[in-house]
C-alpha cells in the first residue's frame, strides 16, 4: 500500500506520496494563505485523482494540522520527529540537520543522543522573516537571493529578532546602502540567529543537511551557512518534503480512503471557539454614521489645487512611506503625496519636486523643512532649509488642527508617538521602544503575507463577525497568535479585525501604559497613516470610550507640521533645489569603514550632484570632520579612562597571573579586585575592550538567547581571556552588591549576581584554566577577608588571612578612591554647567553601560548635542534614603532612583534612562523612575539598547527631549 504524508505548516502545505519501497511518487507544495483545511483538502483531492480509488497509510504533521488531524481521524506526527524519521530513511549519513520553515528554525543533532533545538517563543530569522525583509526592500525573495550574490560588504543586522532586524535594515535602506549588501546582510543575520540562538554551545559539524523552503529556494542562504560553518552542507532531493515524508513513514500511519479524507478535511471546522471580541460594527448603518462623523470632524484644513505665490514645502521621509506637501500663505494644503519609500526616499522626493515645479510653475518656495528617518539625507540631497524633529513636526501639525488638543497619538510605519499636552506645552512624550511592532508596517506586512493589499485587508475587518484576540505583544508573538487562530479556523476577516485590536492595545497598554482613558484628556487627535484604517480608528474609540478626531490628512501630518515650521522660520527664500538643478541631479552611494576610533563604524557615503556629501552609519561626528569642537564633558568617557589604570592585557613577569573579564559588575569592581590580587602577589590581566567581534567570539556558548546583551558579552570576554593563558580566571558570583544604605536590601539582579555560574557550566574553554567562581560579597568589610580565603581555597589558592586582610584594606581604598574620583568629577562638571549655562543629562544605567559596545556611543550623542553627561552613580550619593513606591532592594537600581531624585532638584538637569533589552528588572524601575521625575514636573526619557541599536531613533528621542525642555 502507498503511504501519504501531509505537512501543514505556518505558511504552506506540503504533501508526499510514497511507494511501499519508499520512492516518492507524488509531491506538492503550496502556500495556504491561512486557508489551511481548504488547501489541504485541495491537495488531497488531487492525490485522489492521481491515485483513483486507492487506500493509503496516512499521517498529518506540521503545527497547523495538530487539531485537524485528530478531527479527520488520522494520526498526528510531531514535525521534528517526522524530519528525523525521514532523515533516518533517506540520508542516514547526516550528523546535523538545519531546517528552516516559514516561522520556525530547527537544528537536529543526530550524532549520539538525539537533541533538538527549536526556536523559542521569541525568535526571528525564519522564512517569514526573509519574506518580511524582502517586502521591506520591495523585491521578491528570490530577487533578494540573486541580489545577495552581488554584495561587497556585510552590515551587522541584529539577528535575535525579526523586529529588531527590521529596525536595522530600515535605516540602511534609508541611508542608501546598496541593495546587494543589505540582501546579503539579511541572510547572514538569519545564519547568525540560527547558530547563535539554537546551537547554544554545541558544535554544528559533520555532514550537515539543509531542509525546508528557505534553504531549498535561497542559494545564498545556503552559501552563508556554508561559509559561517566552514563546511559544505548537503541539500538533499525532496528537501521541501522531509516532514511530509517522515509523516508518511510513521509507523502509526492509518489506512484511509484518500477521497474520503479529502472530503472530511474540507468539512473540517474547528470546534474550539477562539477568543473573540465584539464585532467592530454591528451594522452598515452604524459604520455609515461613524464614517460621516469622522468625515466632518476631520475636515478642518482646506485643500487647494491652485496655490499661488509663496508656498512652503514640508517633507516627511518616514520609515516606510514618504509624505510631502506644500502650504500656501493661508495655510491651505496643496499637492499632497503619500507613497511607499521602496527602500530609498531620494528618487521619490526628486520626482515629487519635479512634478511640483511642472504642475505649478508660478509658485515660489519660500521655505522648506524635512522631518522623519530620512531627514538628514533628504536635507543634504535637496538643500532643504530646515531639519525638524519628528515629534515637534507632529505636535505642530496637531496643534494647528485643534488648538485645544490634550493628547496626540500618531501611529506611523515604525513609530508610535504620543504626547500629552498641558498648558499649551508638551508635558509627556511616549514613544514605542526599540520594538516597532504594532505599527503600520506591521499591519502592512501581515496583509502582504496573507495575500492582500493593505486597504482591502483593513476593510475586511469592519464587519468581521468575531474578531480574534491576538494579544498585544511583539510581531513574533503575533505570528504565533495568528497561527493559533488559523489553526482554530479563524477567517481572514476576523484576523484582520484582530490585528487592528492588537495595534490599538499595543499603543494604549504598552506604549502609553494607559490604565485610565481619562488620563488622555478629552481632545484627542489621532494621526499617522495607520489611522487611515477605519478599523483601527474604531477600535481606538471603543477601547478608550472617547470620540477622537482624525484629520482628513492623517497620514500627512508630519509633512504638514514640517511645512508649518518652514513657514514660521522662513527668511523669505529657500535653498531647496530648483527645477533646473533637478535635471542634473545625481546620487551615488559608496560603503567605507571609518578608522577614526575603535568603533570601526561602517559608513555609507552618499554623493550628490555638485559634490554634496552625506555620510551615514557614524556613531560620532568625527568622520563628518565638523569643526564643532567645543569641549566635551562626558563622565562616561572619564569613567572608562579611570578604569584604564587598572587594565592591562599582558602579564609582565614571573608572578602567577589572574585574568578578570571586563564585563557586567567588573566595570565597577575592577579597581577592587585588581588591587586585591596585585597586593597578594599576582599579575592581573583583563579582557580587551568589548567589540561586536568579541561578542561573536563567545556567541556560540550563550545558553539563553533572551538574556541581556551585557550578559551575552561575558562569553566573548572569557574566550579572549582564556587565549591569554592566565593561571586563574577570577569571576565570582555575588548575591549582594555594596550596601549604600539606600534601600531595604542591596542585591544584585539575578543575572549580574550569578552569571559566573552560567559561564562555568557553558563555556568549555574555561577548563583550560582554573576558574575561580565561588560566592563572595564585599559588602561586609569586616568578614570579607575570611570569606575570600575560604572561597579561593576551594580553587586551590592558599592565601594567608593576614595577607588578605592587608590587601583588602588597599582594595577597599582603591574602590573608594575610584568612586570618589567619579563623584568629584561630576561636581566639577556640574560647576562648569553652572558657569557656562549648559544642560545636564544624567544618562542613568548600570556601571556596565559605560561600555561603548553596550551604549553604542549614546553618551557621545548627548554630549554632541551640547549637554554635560553624568552617570547615575556620580550623583546618587547626593540624595539620602527616601521612600519609594517599589521595593528598593537592588544597589544599582537604588542609585537610579536617587539619581532621578537628584535631577528633580536641579533645573538644568534631566535624566535619560538606558535600558538593556531583556532587563526584566527595568519593568519595575522604569515606572518608578518616571514617577519620581514626573511628580516633580520633569520629563522621563527612556532608551532601549541591545546588541544593535538604531541610533537614528535614539537621536529623535534625544532631540525631542531637548526641543521640549527648551
Amino acid at each position: 500500500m502507498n503511504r501519504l504524508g501531509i505537512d501543514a505548516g505556518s505558511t504552506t502545505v506540503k504533501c508526499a506520496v510514497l511507494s511501499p519501497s519508499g520512492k516518492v511518487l507524488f509531491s506538492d507544495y503550496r502556500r495556504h494563505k491561512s486557508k489551511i483545511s481548504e488547501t489541504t483538502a485541495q491537495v488531497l483531492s488531487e492525490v485522489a485523482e492521481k491515485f483513483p480509488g486507492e487506500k493509503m497509510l496516512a499521517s498529518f504533521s506540521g503545527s497547523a494540522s495538530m487539531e485537524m488531524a485528530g478531527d479527520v481521524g488520522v494520526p498526528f506526527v510531531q514535525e521534528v520527529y517526522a524530519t528525523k524519521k525521514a532523515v533516518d530513511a533517506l540520508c542516514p549519513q547526516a550528523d546535523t540537520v538545519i531546517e528552516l520553515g516559514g516561522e520556525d528554525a530547527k537544528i537536529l543533532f543526530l550524532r549520539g543522543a538525539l537533541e533538538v533545538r527549536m526556536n523559542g517563543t521569541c525568535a526571528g530569522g525564519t522564512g517569514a522573516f526573509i519574506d518580511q525583509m524582502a517586502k521591506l526592500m520591495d523585491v521578491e525573495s528570490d530577487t533578494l537571493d540573486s541580489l545577495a550574490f552581488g554584495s561587497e560588504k556585510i552590515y551587522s543586522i541584529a539577528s535575535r529578532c525579526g523586529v529588531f532586524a527590521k529596525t536595522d535594515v530600515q535605516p540602511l535602506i534609508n541611508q542608501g546602502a546598496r541593495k546587494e549588501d543589505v540582501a546579503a546582510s539579511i541572510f547572514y543575520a538569519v545564519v547568525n540567529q540560527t547558530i547563535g540562538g539554537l546551537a547554544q554551545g554545541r558544535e554544528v559539524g559533520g555532514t550537515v543537511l539543509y531542509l525546508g523552503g528557505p534553504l531549498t529556494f535561497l542559494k545564498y542562504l545556503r552559501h552563508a551557512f556554508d561559509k559561517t560553518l566552514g563546511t559544505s552542507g548537503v541539500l538533499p532531493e525532496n528537501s521541501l518534503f522531509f516532514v511530509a515524508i517522515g509523516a508518511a513513514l510513521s509507523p502509526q500511519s492509518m489506512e484511509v480512503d484518500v477521497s474520503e479524507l479529502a472530503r472530511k478535511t474540507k468539512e473540517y471546522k474547528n470546534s474550539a471557539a477562539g477568543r473573540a471580541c465584539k464585532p467592530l460594527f454591528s451594522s452598515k448603518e452604524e459604520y455609515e454614521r461613524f464614517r460621516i462623523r469622522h468625515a466632518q470632524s476631520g475636515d478642518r484644513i482646506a485643500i487647494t489645487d491652485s496655490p499661488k505665490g509663496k508656498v512652503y514645502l514640508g517633507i516627511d521621509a518616514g520609515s516606510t512611506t514618504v509624505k510631502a506637501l506644500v502650504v500656501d500663505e493661508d495655510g491651505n494644503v496643496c499637492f499632497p503625496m503619500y507613497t511607499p519609500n521602496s527602500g530609498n526616499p531620494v528618487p521619490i522626493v526628486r520626482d515629487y519636486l519635479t512634478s511640483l515645479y511642472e504642475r505649478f510653475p508660478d509658485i515660489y518656495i519660500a521655505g522648506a523643512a524635512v522631518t522623519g528617518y530620512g531627514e538628514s539625507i533628504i536635507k543634504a540631497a535637496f538643500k532643504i532649509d530646515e531639519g525638524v524633529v519628528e515629534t515637534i513636526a507632529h505636535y505642530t501639525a496637531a496643534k494647528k488642527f485643534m488648538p485645544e488638543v490634550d493628547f496626540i497619538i500618531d501611529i506611523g510605519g515604525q513609530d508610535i508617538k504620543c504626547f500629552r499636552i498641558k498648558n499649551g506645552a508638551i508635558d509627556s512624550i511616549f514613544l514605542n521602544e526599540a520594538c516597532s511592532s504594532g505599527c503600520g508596517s506591521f499591519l502592512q506586512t501581515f496583509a502582504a503575507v496573507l495575500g492582500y493589499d493593505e486597504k482591502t485587508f483593513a476593510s475586511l475587518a469592519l464587519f468581521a463577525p468575531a474578531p480574534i484576540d491576538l494579544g498585544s505583544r511583539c510581531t513574533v508573538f503575533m505570528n504565533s497568535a495568528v497561527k493559533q487562530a488559523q489553526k482554530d479556523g479563524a477567517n481572514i476577516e476576523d484576523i484582520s479585525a484582530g490585528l487592528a485590536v492588537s495595534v490599538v492595545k499595543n499603543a494604549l497598554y504598552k506604549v502609553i501604559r494607559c490604565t485610565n482613558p481619562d488620563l488622555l484628556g478629552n481632545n484627542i487627535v489621532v494621526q499617522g497613516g495607520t489611522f487611515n484604517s477605519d478599523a483601527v480608528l474604531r477600535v481606538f474609540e471603543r477601547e478608550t470610550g472617547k470620540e477622537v478626531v482624525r484629520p482628513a490628512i492623517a497620514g500627512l501630518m508630519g509633512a504638514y507640521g514640517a511645512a508649518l515650521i518652514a513657514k514660521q522660520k522662513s527668511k523669505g527664500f529657500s535653498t531647496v533645489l530648483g527645477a533646473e538643478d533637478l535635471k542634473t541631479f545625481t546620487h551615488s552611494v559608496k560603503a567605507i569603514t571609518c578608522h577614526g576610533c575603535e568603533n570601526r563604524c561602517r559608513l555609507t557615503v552618499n554623493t550628490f550632484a555638485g559634490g554634496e556629501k552625506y555620510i551615514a552609519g557614524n556613531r560620532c561626528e568625527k568622520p563628518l570632520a565638523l569643526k564643532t569642537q567645543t569641549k566635551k564633558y562626558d563622565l562616561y568617557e572619564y569613567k572608562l579612562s579611570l578604569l584604564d589604570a587598572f587594565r592591562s592585557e599582558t602579564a609582565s613577569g614571573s608572578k602567577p597571573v589572574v585574568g578578570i573579564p571586563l564585563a557586567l559588575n567588573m566595570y565597577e569592581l575592577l579597581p577592587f579586585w585588581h588591587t586585591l590580587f596585585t597586593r597578594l602577589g599576582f599579575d592581573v590581566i583583563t579582557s580587551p575592550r568589548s567589540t561586536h567581534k568579541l561578542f561573536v567570539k563567545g556567541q556560540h556558548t550563550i545558553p539563553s538567547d533572551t538574556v541581556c546583551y551585557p550578559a551575552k558579552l561575558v562569553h566573548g570576554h572569557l574566550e579572549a581571556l582564556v587565549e591569554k593563558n592566565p593561571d586563574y580566571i577570577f569571576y565570582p558570583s555575588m548575591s549582594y552588591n555594596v550596601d549604600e544604605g539606600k534601600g531595604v536590601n542591596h542585591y544584585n539582579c539575578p543575572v549580574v549576581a550569578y552569571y559566573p555560574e552560567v559561564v562555568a557550566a557553558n563555556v568549555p574553554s574555561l577548563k583550560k584554566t582554573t576558574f575561580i567562581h565561588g560566592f563572595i560579597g564585599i559588602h561586609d568589610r569586616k568578614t570579607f577577608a575570611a570569606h575570600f580565603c575560604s572561597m579561593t581555597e576551594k580553587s586551590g589558592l592558599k592565601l594567608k588571612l593576614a595577607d588578605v586582610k592587608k590587601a583588602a584594606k588597599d582594595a577597599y581604598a582603591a574602590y573608594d578612591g575610584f568612586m570618589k574620583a567619579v563623584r568629584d568629577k561630576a561636581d566639577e562638571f556640574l560647576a562648569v554647567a553652572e558657569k557656562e549655562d549648559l544642560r545636564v543629562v544624567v544618562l542613568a544605567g548600570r556601571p556596565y553601560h559605560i561600555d561603548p559596545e553596550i551604549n553604542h556611543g549614546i553618551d557621545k550623542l548627548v554630549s554632541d548635542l551640547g549637554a554635560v553627561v553624568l552617570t547615575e552613580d556620580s550623583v546618587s550619593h547626593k540624595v539620602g534614603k527616601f521612600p519609594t513606591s517599589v521595593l528598593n532592594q537592588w544597589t544599582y537600581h537604588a542609585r537610579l532612583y536617587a539619581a532621578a531624585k537628584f535631577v528633580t532638584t536641579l533645573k538644568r538637569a534631566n535624566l535619560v534612562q538606558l535600558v538593556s533589552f531583556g532587563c526584566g528588572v527595568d519593568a519595575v524601575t522604569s515606572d518608578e523612575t518616571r514617577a519620581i521625575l514626573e511628580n516633580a514636573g520633569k520629563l522621563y526619557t527612556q532608551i532601549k539598547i541591545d546588541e544593535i541599536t538604531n541610533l537614528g531613533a535614539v537621536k529623535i528621542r534625544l532631540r525631542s527631549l531637548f526641543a521640549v525642555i527648551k
Partner: protein
Amino acid sequence: MNDSNATESINGIRNVKFTSQMKKDYTILAPDIFPTHLPLVVEVVRMYGYKVDVLRYTGKKVIDTGLAYVHNDMCYPAICSTGQQLYALKSGDYDPHKVALIQFQTGGGCRASNYIWLLRKALHNMGMDFVPVLSLSFNKTERSPGFRITPMMIAKGLMALVYGDLIMLLKNQVLPYEKNKGAVQSIIDKWTKTLTEQFRRNKGLVGASVRKNMRAIIEDFAAVEKLNVKKTKVGVVGEIYVKYSPLGNNGLEDFLLSQDCEFMVPGVLGFFQYMFDNMITDHELYGTPLKSLWGARIGASMARRIEKTMLDALKDYPQFAAPTPFARIRELGDKTLGRGVKMGEGWLLPAEIAELIEKGYDNVICAQPFGCLPNHIVAKGAARTIRELYPTANLCPIDYDAGASKVNQENRIKLMLAIAKEKENEQARN
C-alpha cells in the same frame, strides 16, 4: 497594638496598612497559587480569626485585567496572580471597602518581591487605593499591624502544605490510571473536606493524628481501581507559580493527561526548605549574623520533621514513588549549580530535574515565565550540566506568557513525547 501610621503615601501611591480593626470584618483575598494546597493552608489562617478567600477566577478576563494594570514586561505570574485579585475587585462579588489583598513575598533578589507594590500601583490607577495590601513573608520586608504570623501559625501552615503535597503526589500517580472516572477527584474532595473540618477543631495538625490521616489518605488512593496501561512518565519543574497553576501554564496537567502521560511535580515543602536553607547558606558565604537566622533554623527543623512524617507514612506503600528527602536534593543540587544561587527557584530547580531523572522521570518539562530573570541562570544556564550528568535526559523548556500561543507550547511537548515514546519502544524491543 499600635495601628498608627496606618497609611503612608509615596509618589502619590498610598500604602494602606491592614489594621487590627480590619481583621474583624475584612476578607483577605488570596490568588490561587497552589491549587491543591491553598484551600488547606487557608483553613489554618482562618483558625487565627482571619477571613480569607482563595480566588478561583480563570480565563482571559483575568489575564486581561492583569495586562491592563501591570507593566506588560513584568513576569507572567504577576499578570496572572494580581490579575485575579484586581478582577475580584471589579467583579462586584466583593465589597471593595471590606477586602484586603495578600501576596507572598520571599524578599529575594528577583522581581517577584515587588508584586506587593505592583498591586498598590494598580489599585491607585483603578481608584481603589483604599484597599490594603498584605505581605505574607518570613522576613521583615513589610509589616502589617493587623496581620501577625506566629511561629505556631507557620508550623501549622507547613503541615497543611504537606497534606497538599501528599495529596498531589498520590493524585499524580493514580489519576492517569483510574478506572472509574472521578474516583480520584472524590478522594481529593473528601480529604479536603475532612481535613478542613479537623483543622477547624484544631485537630490533625500535630502528633499521631497526622500519621493517622496520612496513612488513611494513602490507603484511599491505594484502593482506587486502576487500569493496566503504560503511560509516559513526565516530570514538571519550573517557576513556583507557573508549574502549579493551570491559569499560568495553560492547563498543562490536563494536556499531559490527554497525551497518555503520568506526571510528577515536586512538592511545595521542598521550596520552603530551600528558602530556609538559603538563609543559613547566607551565613556561611557572606557572614550574615547568626542571630538573624533563628527563624530559618526553626523553620528548617520543623520542615525536616514534617517531611519525615510524610516519608515514614509512605514507606509502607512501595507502589508509590515518594518524594526525595531534602537532604538528598541538596546533594543533587551541589552537582548541578552553586548553592549560593538563591534567587527565584535558584539551585533547587536543576536539583529537582536531577531528582526526577533519578526517579525514572527522564522527560522533564521546565515551565518558566517568559523573560524570567533567574531562569537564565537556573534553567537555561544549567541545562548543559544536566545533559552532561544525565545523557538520557529529555528536557523540554516551555515559556509561558500572555502572548505565547498554546499551540506552540503543546507542539514542543509533543516533540518531547515523540522522542520519549521512541525510546520506550526501543527499550521494549531490547
